[in-house]
């Protein structure tokens, strides 16, 4: 059964780029434009195998979303995909519950390699 990945990003281009790459490699993809919409999907029953989230988003940013998502999904890996690069922000993400930190842009091959690394058996 295909693994489900939730992408959270306020950029339509980012969502289409990452979604297309993942779907071409056999993953099922759900999307949300910000943390609020992503939380609505999670509290409505969506149980993704992996979450990939931006950090700087309106309404609810990535760090706050990661904290809230972690309360619901204790074990699913959560990766950030962001332009934020400094150590302080990475530590904040790690403390919130992120599994990894990816700095944009991420090439398609690299993205799939990392997804396979955090989703063994995918």
């Amino acid at each position: 059964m295909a693994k489900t990945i939730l992408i959270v990003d306020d950029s339509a281009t980012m969502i289409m780029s990452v979604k297309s790459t993942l779907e071409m490699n056999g993953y099922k993809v759900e999307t949300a434009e910000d943390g609020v919409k992503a939380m609505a999907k999670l509290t409505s029953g969506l149980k993704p195998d992996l979450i990939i989230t931006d950090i700087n988003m309106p309404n609810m940013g990535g760090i706050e979303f990661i904290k809230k998502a972690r309360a619901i999904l204790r074990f699913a890996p959560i990766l950030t995909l962001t332009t934020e690069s400094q150590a302080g922000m990475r530590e904040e993400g790690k403390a919130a519950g992120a599994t990894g930190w990816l700095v944009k842009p991420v090439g398609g091959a690299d993205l799939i390699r990392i997804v396979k690394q955090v989703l063994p058996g995918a």
Partner: protein
Amino acid sequence: MMQQKSHSYLHVVEQIGDISECYSAIDNEMARQLNVVLHDTHEASLVIIDLMNALNSQAHQEDINKHIADVLGSMQSQDILRQRIERMLEVMKKRQTLFEKFVNQLQSNEEQLDDFGSEMNRLFRDYVSNESRHANSIERHNNEQNLPKFELF
């Protein structure tokens, strides 16, 4: 002499008011142009993604799939550009607000002016510091921390 100075002062204040209006008009036009750039690059991205999806449906070789994935990855540059432009526009808006506040205080003959020089300086420094947080910014290249691009905790 004092009356002449007073006239010159009023003339300067009037000039600054005119400059502020032009400043605002220029900023608004630049913002409009930059938004058009963002829209056009986004539209171009959509076309390329459609082409990639169409090509993928016909692809049967692993190499082609890899190239398609790389092209899709390069689409992310549009989002990085968007964010940089949005940060620039925000600073331009704040700069204009500060300048208008300065002009209003001058025109209302307030006895003591706020320290606009320091505020403008702080705005500039905050912008530069904020830019250095983001990968691919000019400031980032100047303050390289050699952190990995991909890090699993």
